[in-house]
């Protein structure tokens, strides 16, 4: 049990539309171990983003339970969840969402002062992560001066610099060409192998799926299959 990162028990999510309940996730039961490299796949509208949001503690399930490191975190207050997200979760999105007025290094170390790093410590940690991402030559550049792939690597560096337990990535390569996508996934893979961080991502891309060790197939809000590679 101690090595479980997530444990979903009868997890459900629905929303109301015109006074009708629209189910998005139906009775999901699954578990994900720490240091995993797994993905959720499935066609659009099948609930991948919602599931990642729930795993990232930014959306509450309507019913059921989700244990994060053995804790039922949805009983926590918003402040406590904010703290958990800061310390244990890194989020990456397909649109990068970097701050355009900050440099690559400043974007990377954005969260570190809130985690108690001094300026020098933060700068050192940021440079290390950017070095791992192959971006050490671009420290003082602004995001708009970088290519899409480089920007996504900065977003990964920002999420990773916090040394979270898990990095969640919602279609991280959707806006990138196949070569860049592969580089990004390799970067994920290296970090996971070297730093023991779990990576969970969603994708449609068959090629990217091949890198995952576990693949959860989602259809109409339910897990239809789980592949272990």
């Amino acid at each position, binding site marked *: 049990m101690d090595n479980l990162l997530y444990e979903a028990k009868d997890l459900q999510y629905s929303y109301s539309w015109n006074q009708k309940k629209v189910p998005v996730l139906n009775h999901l039961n699954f578990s994900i171990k720490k240091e995993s490299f797994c993905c959720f796949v499935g066609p659009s509208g099948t609930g991948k*983003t*919602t599931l990642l*949001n729930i795993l*990232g503690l*930014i*959306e509450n399930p309507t019913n059921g339970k989700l244990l994060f490191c053995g804790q039922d975190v949805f009983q926590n207050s918003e*402040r406590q969840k*904010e*703290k*958990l*997200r*800061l*310390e244990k*979760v*890194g*989020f990456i*999105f397909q*649109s990068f*969402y*970097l*701050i*355009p*007025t*900050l440099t690559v290094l*400043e974007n990377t170390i*954005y*969260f570190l*002062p*809130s985690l108690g790093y001094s300026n020098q410590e933060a700068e050192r940690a940021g440079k290390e992560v950017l070095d791992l991402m192959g971006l050490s030559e671009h420290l003082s550049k602004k995001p708009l001066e970088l290519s899409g792939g480089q920007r996504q690597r900065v977003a990964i560096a*920002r*999420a990773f610099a*916090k040394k979270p337990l898990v990095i969640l990535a919602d279609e991280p390569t959707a806006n990138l060409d196949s070569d860049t996508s592969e580089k990004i996934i390799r970067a994920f893979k290296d970090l996971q192998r070297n730093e023991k961080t779990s990576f969970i991502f969603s994708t449609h891309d068959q090629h990217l799926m091949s890198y995952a060790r576990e693949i959860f197939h989602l259809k109409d809000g339910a897990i239809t299959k789980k592949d272990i590679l």
Partner: protein
Amino acid sequence: MNPLKLAWRNLFRNVRRTLASLFTVALGSGGLLIYQGFNTGIMNQYRENTIHGYYGYGEIYPENYYNIVKEMPWKFWLEDEVRIENELKKIPEIVELFPRVSLYAFLVKGDINLGGKGEGILAERENKFFNQMNFISGNEIKNEDDIILGKGLAESLGAKIGDTVTVLVQTINGQLNGADYVVAGIFHMGKKIIDDTFFRVPLKSAQKLLNTNRVEKISLSTTGVTSWPTIEKKIRSANLGLDPIPFDVLDKSYYQNSVDFLEAQFSFVRMIILIIVALGIFNTIAVSLLERSGEIGALRANGESRSRLFQILFIENLILGCIGGIAGITLAVAFEKTLLSHGIPMPPGPGITRQFLIFLEIQPYHYLHALILPALTAGISSLWPISKIMKKSIPELLRST
């Protein structure tokens, strides 16, 4: 990175939009400064008219005399004028004393016979200080038989410089008395009610006409408007049986009411300017926040707190307001030194018959108002869009990009 630094950097995210907001705030701030300076200019012009036209900085009356109707007012007039003057001269803030008596009279010239209100004055003292009489012809009183007339009164009498006018009064004993005067000057104080009825003769001859050696009141020239409270305090503590009345009380209906009116008008216009500033930048702030909602969502998903984001966005708008305020002040000062340096010609105000020229009189606290008010307005008008975006859930923020 500290919120102040982040907020500052955020201003350069969309330079054109930031400039548009700065321009709006600067216009508001500059407008406020120019309007406040203009208003002060008008008020000071009114004040100068009031002080140097008639009242001085204030007048000294016998105790319980001012504004109280008396059957025989001369009984209360100041008897020992020389002693009182000597006492008053001990107060260093008093520069000059102008003893006066009032007289109601008939003025006769040929077949024309008109009522008027006159004053006996010490011309040799008054001529220097009361420089707002605006003589349209002739000059001040120089001889014992000189009379100066308000423009309207002179016109009604058909009197010109050098003409003789007979002044008929009732002495304090109830007898009729009269004297001939030569018209030395015709003045135009700008207030119709004064110009139509007022005349001045030398103090000694007025006292002779009234058959008294008392004076009704003493106008004062002082070291300035601000010294009046000290003078008042000193006169009262000297127990001379005198009532010192400042010019703004003496001329309440003209000066003080005008000042109150202008201040009320300014408050209203200031509110309108600030509302325009608020509305002008509200939309820009709302659009800018909407564009950044994905970024805000991503930061919050990674653990950034609502309160810190709120702080950053609020400071950003406060900085914008401050810079806009400084830009507005700079613009306003540039205007003051160039286009407005020759004054603004104004038509006659209510109850006034002459045009005047207004110069902006920007006071140090005006700069503070012009900086703080628009900056606060920018900050406050950002509160609603910021709170609105902060209330959104993270998935909503991520979806709304």
